[in-house]
């Protein structure tokens, strides 16, 4: 009888990698190698603040999102008008969403572990956002107060997303730097409403995620 235990899949795969690479890697060599990688691409803004905001609006519209500008004092009126134009009356909202932004004439249901079937019954969802990327027309949502869990921004057919101008960056690297500290939170990058180009490469708006995305940019 032999006492040699057969190698686990894990050990065998790691062993094969080490043989292929001619040795074992470690934190120090990985760290020094990573630090010296070439990063000659654009990593900071090149446009004026105003230019960045205009770029965001343009890129969001290009991907079928509807964009409205507002001021901090005018957010509630803007929300009311936008929802009235869409004919939406009953929306789900995450915990921590600013009450001052909610028009009293409409119904906002707090998302307290609503089931997918319950989420499927509301007219839409209203959230804030962590950061927005102008160059790609993207809003980034994380599971924090005012943005909530992922299912709530997914199952309803309409998403109204509020973006503060302070949270708008020009490039993808700037956005990643901003969310690096909260990297382990559930995170969703949203660039326009749900879409597909699976049929003859024709972009069609709306498959499974919200088919309509409105963004209020608070400047």
């Amino acid at each position, binding site marked *: 009888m032999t006492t040699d235990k057969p190698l686990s899949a894990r050990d*065998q*795969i790691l062993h094969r*990698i080490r043989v292929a690479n001619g040795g074992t890697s470690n934190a120090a060599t*990985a760290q020094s190698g990573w630090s010296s990688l070439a990063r000659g691409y654009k990593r900071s803004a090149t446009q004026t603040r105003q230019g960045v905001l205009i770029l965001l609006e343009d890129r969001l519209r290009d991907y079928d999102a509807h964009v409205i500008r507002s001021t901090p004092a005018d957010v509630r009126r803007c929300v009311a008008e936008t929802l009235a134009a869409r004919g939406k009356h009953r929306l789900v909202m995450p915990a921590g969403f600013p009450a001052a932004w909610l028009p009293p004439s409409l119904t906002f249901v707090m998302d307290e572990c609503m089931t997918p079937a319950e989420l499927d019954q509301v007219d839409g969802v209203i959230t804030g956002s962590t950061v927005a990327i102008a160059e790609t027309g993207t809003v980034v949502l994380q599971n924090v107060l005012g943005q909530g869990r992922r299912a709530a921004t997914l199952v309803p057919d309409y998403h109204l997303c509020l973006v503060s101008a302070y949270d708008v960056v020009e490039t993808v690297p700037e956005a990643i730097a901003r969310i690096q500290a909260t990297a382990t939170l559930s*995170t969703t990058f*949203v*660039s326009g409403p749900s879409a597909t180009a699976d049929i003859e490469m024709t972009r069609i708006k709306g498959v499974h*995620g919200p088919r309509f995305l409105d963004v209020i940019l608070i400047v």
Partner: protein
Amino acid sequence: MSAGPLDPKTAPAFPMAAKAAMGDSQLRSNVRHATDVIQAKRARVVDEMPDWQALREAGKQIREHTMRHLDFYLEQFEANCTRAGGVVHWARDAAEARRIVVSLVKASGSDEVIKIKSMTTEEIQLNAALEAAGIQPYETDLAELIIQLGQDQPSHIVVPALHKNRQQIREIFQRTMHLPNLGDQPQDLADAARLFLREKFLRVKTGVSGANFLIAETGGVCVVESEGNGRMCLTLPETLITIAGIDKVLPRYQDLEVTLQLLPRSATGERMNPYNSIWTGVDPADGPRVFHIVLMDNARTEILADEEARQTLNCIRCGACQNACPVYRQTGGHAYGSVYAGPIGAILTPQLQEMHHAQSLPYASSLCGACYEVCPVKINIPEVLIHLRNKVVLQNTSGIAGLFDVEAAAMKAMAAIFRSERRFRAAQRLGRIAETPLVRKDEHGLGWISWLPGMLGGWSQTRDLREMPKETFRDWWEKRSGHDN
């Protein structure tokens, strides 16, 4: 269309399959249209980026660095994912990966799963294994749904149903969803898919996904998609099972700033695809309560061990090389006999088979280099193709079998002829005599050969050869030198 799964072990050689595909004019026109559209979209959004070449270089360096330190980054990913509540499994090959996934689905208590499009699950033919175990998989990506309902096979790594046009898709949906009055506008078809799948999203308790990136630094996983079906599968089920090749690791979260710029622009010609999901282990307040991830080798370490071919592993599965390839654009994907078609398939598939199958694929290329030019991580596909051709020849000519290989014998004879001037001249004389019965004169009195015997016939099948000149350059030069002296 193609009967049975795309299995490189049993697929016909590329030239045979390609010839059949070339006869299907509907297929060719569908593939041509789709690849034209996608290439134009890509070119537009790549041209917007003045730093595109710097991004490509960064992408290449990040991927090369990852492979050099793959053992460290996989262990780091495992530790961080486990700490965040995920369960990490390792699979040496496809069979082990299938076994693990099937047993995890069974343990989840479900006899059905909702699936995100995943080429890795296609690679290991997971659906067949699930069905054999009494588990019903539902593909939820629109293209994968078309493939599944049409009992078809994927022909492109990003747009798997690219070979089908809207009328063909309507016919599949009419038949399988029982919608006799369904229209053929893309919007009608997408709406039908939305209704068909929504009930499954809300009901099925177990999800299966692939992964675009595993982040070693955080233990997080990133999935990139368009429709929201991915988010449904990642968010609503109680159990999520993700399967990823060991090559999918990125060192750090920051590296997403490169890959999330390269991938969408290269894959679908979008500045950013509609949805990217990033999650880390289990969050009790958001998403599945149980998360498993299977890290699969399946010959990737073999590729890693080949210094000249290991750049194959840098691939981030964007499909740009397929759209740009003049061969793929003619044949479509099925001719490659593998779920990985086109230029990347021509190098990846035979290596995943450890060069035992799919030996014709390294030759399914004119080496024009269009694939290299569009590759977002600068994989030099033509270089790897040539390296693999060399491997195929070495493998087939080593040992006893090599003695009986006609092509190898011919190549040896050629080498002997080229080594000696005397033998070279003799061969030229012999050639002029041998060609005589094959030469036909055209109206200008030029001699052409349009048919060659035996193995040489491949050459004359699509082109005519000029007859050999009556006087070689060498003869002419010697005569001329003689006069000068």
